[in-house]
């Protein structure tokens, strides 16, 4: 077995050599004070001193600091309350307020102090609102508590001023991982500029002057060996952690003596050779000493080779390697005491699964829990290398291997984007932007000017920020119709994939990238997916005064989760803008049916599904625009949608398409069977719809009769919002909020709650379904700015002492959605 120092020595020498280069650079750029943050900074500086010598070329010093002391400084005068609270909450978790106060004051308050007892007696949950109130309150205990933070704030300021000696730039050095101290200090003392140089960064929130030396990743990425340390960062923390407590107090602050003692303890700590982790650290120092004069290319090369070995060890450790690489137990900080083991003891009475989930190095825990034959698969899965999809690797041929380097204009992965247009420059310009913004660049944009003004189209092409080699204009002197125009466009170029991007629709910039990625994947090929569909927004808009006015957007056909021939036979349920397909299937079909003025895409989709499968991407990546608001040109003129402006034509051609398909000898007989069954479904659906309409009419009549018999002021109908039904504004709000939440970086448990509910958003009119959605997803539905809580609470005194009055995630607005609407409450609005 390779000795741990042979693996970690080269890696940590390279890190320290790079750190030295970066610090020199920062200092040369603008004279800086380099501060090594305790505790890890002590050992980092020790190693750097060995590498760079006693005079490194920049002014460096140890800085007695910890996250809790940076938080204390930020809480003083509430100078940086939000960040300070956020870091505190992240560290304390769900804890009673009194315990948090005790942790902050543990070095300051005498045990018998009645003010401490008063604070400790606060058993409510530690939350931002009540913590802020506590810090602003005027009782004796609160004033005393506040005073402690203000003194801490002032002391930190003095200490920083002393350390930096007039320089405006401070460089913090630490192991990582979020740069919380840098962020806190930067926000608290805005006139000082803080940079940070860290071993690694694991944080999705951007920070301009935070620099990672070895890795910057949230997790492990295959092909980037250095990210293995994101799986077991504690290895690095452990090596550089001195055997001394955290410096929780601030030099010259309310506990100056303790701060001095804590800093002295860190400075004076001696790595213990009997401790396995410390012994390894001492070996690393010896390695640094022995190789400090190695040329930097040799240092880099050896570190690279060693990192490959470390990657294997941290991702697929063998049981005998675990003790050497687990590191020492992780010490608690943030005012708390105790240690957390990296590897859970196997006799702790828990199940192996529980121990693995709690372990700080999960692949290491797995190595000890399971036989080698099982462990490797589990280790792969836990770092994201293996999952349910990969399980089928053997069947899909997704066996890895090097992917061929694609050329800029290779046919592989190329997409023909066909845009049919006729005298709609406003919309064509938007379509051009939609194409130009695609992150997938291997496309060819074919504009088919179907009898419109050619010059206007050419002007838009001239303005396009699109590689000119990727543009073709097909111009007809008179219109040939939608399907013939599509065929002209598709056949004008040769690409692997095709998509119809009508001039009135648009995409998310990642649309093509996701679709081509899907269709090119071995798993998609194996499943016979020759086309792919994404979710779409249905955008409501109008054209007014030469501008597109956006009126809102809702999920288009949110019930769609897959694409089957049977469903397609009932009716077309997606727009061309959401559908990318392989050209070979188009060729096999023979293109779009040119005799059809409408429904050509429906026929094409049925023929497509008779030959190949269409995959589904669960992301809203396309926008299906409807000019369904307003009047004049917007709805009925040149800007009309064929589905809005030409509904009767669709009805007329529906049987034509069905009959033609049934008679088509090129299609398998099963298609005719499916179409026949679909016909029965349509009849049933029609009957249901008629019954629903009759019921609705009856309800309306009953409602108006009841209203007529009840006293009350008469409000003109046109200014009155309907009662008892979900208003469009609330529907938009709820749908928008939930979809935004699903697209955001949600914790898995919350995502699991939301995702099934999103699929039911089209049922919001049903009070029971709405109540369920709002109750379960209330955390993701904020109150709209125009909802007047005060008026609502005045009206509904019955909810004053209930959870709807501001406790947890429930709010008066949620009560209105769940009960208010069905109770016939009017929606109160502000302003």
């Amino acid at each position, binding site marked *: 077995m390779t000795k741990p120092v042979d693996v970690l020595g080269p890696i940590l020498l390279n890190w320290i050599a*790079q750190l030295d*280069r970066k610090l020199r650079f920062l200092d040369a750029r603008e004279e800086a004070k380099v501060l090594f943050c305790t505790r890890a900074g002590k050992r980092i500086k020790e190693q750097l001193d060995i590498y760079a010598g006693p005079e490194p070329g920049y002014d460096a010093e140890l800085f007695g600091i910890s996250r809790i002391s940076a938080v204390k400084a930020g809480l003083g005068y509430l100078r940086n309350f939000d960040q300070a609270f956020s870091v505190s909450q992240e560290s304390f978790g769900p804890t009673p307020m009194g315990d948090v106060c005790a942790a902050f004051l543990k070095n300051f308050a005498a045990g018998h102090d009645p003010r401490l007892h008063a604070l400790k007696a606060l058993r409510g949950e530690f939350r931002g609102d009540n913590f802020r109130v506590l810090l602003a309150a005027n009782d004796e205990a609160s004033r005393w508590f506040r005073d402690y933070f203000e003194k801490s704030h002032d002391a930190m300021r003095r200490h920083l001023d002393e350390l930096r000696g007039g320089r405006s730039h401070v460089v913090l050095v630490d192991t990582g991982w979020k740069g919380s101290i840098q962020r806190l200090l930067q926000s608290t003392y805005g006139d000082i500029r803080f940079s940070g140089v860290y071993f690694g960064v694991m944080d999705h929130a951007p920070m301009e002057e935070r620099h990672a030396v070895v890795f910057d990743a949230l997790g492990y990425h295959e092909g980037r060996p250095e990210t293995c340390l994101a799986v077991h960062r504690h290895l690095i923390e452990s090596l550089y952690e001195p055997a001394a407590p955290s410096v929780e107090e601030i030099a010259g602050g309310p506990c100056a003596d303790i701060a001095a003692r804590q800093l002295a303890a860190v400075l004076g700590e001696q790595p213990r050779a009997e401790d396995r982790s410390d012994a390894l650290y001492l070996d690393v120092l010896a390695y640094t000493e022995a190789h400090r004069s190695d040329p*930097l290319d040799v240092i880099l090369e050896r570190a690279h080779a060693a990192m490959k070995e470390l990657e294997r060890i941290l991702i697929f450790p063998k049981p005998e390697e675990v003790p050497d690489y687990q590191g020492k137990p992780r010490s608690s900080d943030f005012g708390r005491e105790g240690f957390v083991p990296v590897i859970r003891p196997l006799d702790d009475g828990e199940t192996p699964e529980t121990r693995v989930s709690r372990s700080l190095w999960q692949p290491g825990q797995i190595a000890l829990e399971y036989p080698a034959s099982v462990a490797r698969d589990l280790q792969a899965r836990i770092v994201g290398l293996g999952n349910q999809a990969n399980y089928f690797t053997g069947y899909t041929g997704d066996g890895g291997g090097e992917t061929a380097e694609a050329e800029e204009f290779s046919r592989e992965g190329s997409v023909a984007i066909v845009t049919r247009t006729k005298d709609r420059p406003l919309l064509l310009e938007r379509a051009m932007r939609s194409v130009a913004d695609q992150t997938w660049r291997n496309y060819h944009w074919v504009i088919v000017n179907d009898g419109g003004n050619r010059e206007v189209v050419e002007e838009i092409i001239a303005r396009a920020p699109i590689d000119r*080699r990727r*543009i*073709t204009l097909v111009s007809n002197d008179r219109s040939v119709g939608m399907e013939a125009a599509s065929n002209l466009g598709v056949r004008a170029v040769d690409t692997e994939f095709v998509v119809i991007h009508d001039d009135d629709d648009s995409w998310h910039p990642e649309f093509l990238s996701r679709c081509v990625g899907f269709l090119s994947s071995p798993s998609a090929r194996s499943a016979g997916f020759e086309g792919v569909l994404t979710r779409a927004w249905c955008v409501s808009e109008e054209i007014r005064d030469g501008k597109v006015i956006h009126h809102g957007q809702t999920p288009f056909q949110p019930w769609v989760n897959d694409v089957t021939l049977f469903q397609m036979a009932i009716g077309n349920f997606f727009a061309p803008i959401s559908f990318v397909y392989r050209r070979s299937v188009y060729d096999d079909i023979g293109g779009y049916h040119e005799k059809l003025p409408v429904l050509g895409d429906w026929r094409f989709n049925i023929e497509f599904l008779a030959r190949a499968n269409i995959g589904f991407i669960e992301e809203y990546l396309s926008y299906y625009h409807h000019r369904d608001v307003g009047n004049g040109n917007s709805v009925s003129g040149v800007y009309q949608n064929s589905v809005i402006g030409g509904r009767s034509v669709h009805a007329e051609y529906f049987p034509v398409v069905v009959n033609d398909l049934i008679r088509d000898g090129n299609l398998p007989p099963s298609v005719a069977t499916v179409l026949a069954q679909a016909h029965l479904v349509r009849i049933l659906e029609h009957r249901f719809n008629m019954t629903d309409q009759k019921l609705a009419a009856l309800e309306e009549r009953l409602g108006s009769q009841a209203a007529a018999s009840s006293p009350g002021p008469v409000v003109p109908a046109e200014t009155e919002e309907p009662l008892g039904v979900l208003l469009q504004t609330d529907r938009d709000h709820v749908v928008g909020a939930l979809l935004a939440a699903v697209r955001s970086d949600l914790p898995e448990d919350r995502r699991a709650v939301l995702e099934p509910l999103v699929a039911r958003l089209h049922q919001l009119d049903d009070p029971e379904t709405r109540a369920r959605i709002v109750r379960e997803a209330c955390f993701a539905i904020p109150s709209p700015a125009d909802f007047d809580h005060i008026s609502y609470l005045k009206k509904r005194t019955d909810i004053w002492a209930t959870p709807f009055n501001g406790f947890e995630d429930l709010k008066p607005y949620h009560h209105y959605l769940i009960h208010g609407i069905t109770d016939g409450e009017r929606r109160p609005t502000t302003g």
Partner: protein
Amino acid sequence: MATEITTYGREEREIYEAPDFDSYYGSGRAQALVDRFEAMLAGADVCSFDVFDTVLLRDARSELERFADVAAEFVRRAGRAGHGQVPSVRTCLAARVLAASTAYQMSRPVKGCREGRFGDIVRNLVASLSLPEDPFAELWRASEFEIEAAQLRGSPFIENLVDLAVARGKTVIFISDMYLSAEEIARLVETCGMSLEKVSRIFSSADTVVNKRSGLVYDLVCGECGVEPGRILHLGDSLEGDFLAAKRRGLEAIHLPVPKALMRQRLDSHRRLMAELAGESPLPLPIAPPAL
């Protein structure tokens, strides 16, 4: 019914498919490009050119090979001057690449853009070689300048376009995304035998930090030249920085790609060098291969 099919970008395609710069620019086909340039020039007040691979043409060597040549020249000069033990060419090359990477990563961002500067890169690389700044920084600067100049040549075709623009009374400027300052770029241009008399100003991202790729430098140029974006015609080899970003900013632009065959030679050069540099294991230098 008549259908007409127009395929755009013919000139761009012909340059891209040409075996080298001269095969296209020296041929009669280039006249179509000149005609297009003149037509677009009519609507412009300012005519702007990218520098590297547009005004000054690079050869088939990759950036990595060029740095290797610089490192070799530095070692040769240092040895000749008797400055004691000098690190190996491989070490110097690694220092150059790592220093550039550090300079880029650690430079102070301006509106989200970062750029390394040659002076900072050289100081940092000399320090990381544990050599004193004096005389080694100057020695490196001189070596790199000489190698750069030797591997560049002026483009007669672009010189002709500059003359045309000046003859039409247009202001001519150069814009470069580069670690060299405007002053250093000017020296290189003149060393390559091109006069700067007709060029009003050179903008380099080493000075402005904001760059062409982000499009922000075009805003700066418009402000400094006092013209609307639509009155600037920009030409350059980078699809992203010289064409797409310029168009997004409202400029008129012409893309002059580097011939694919030349890019392939540069890619081969990069790969060959990387293979030569590998010792017991690969040397993972942070330098991107030329993109085809």
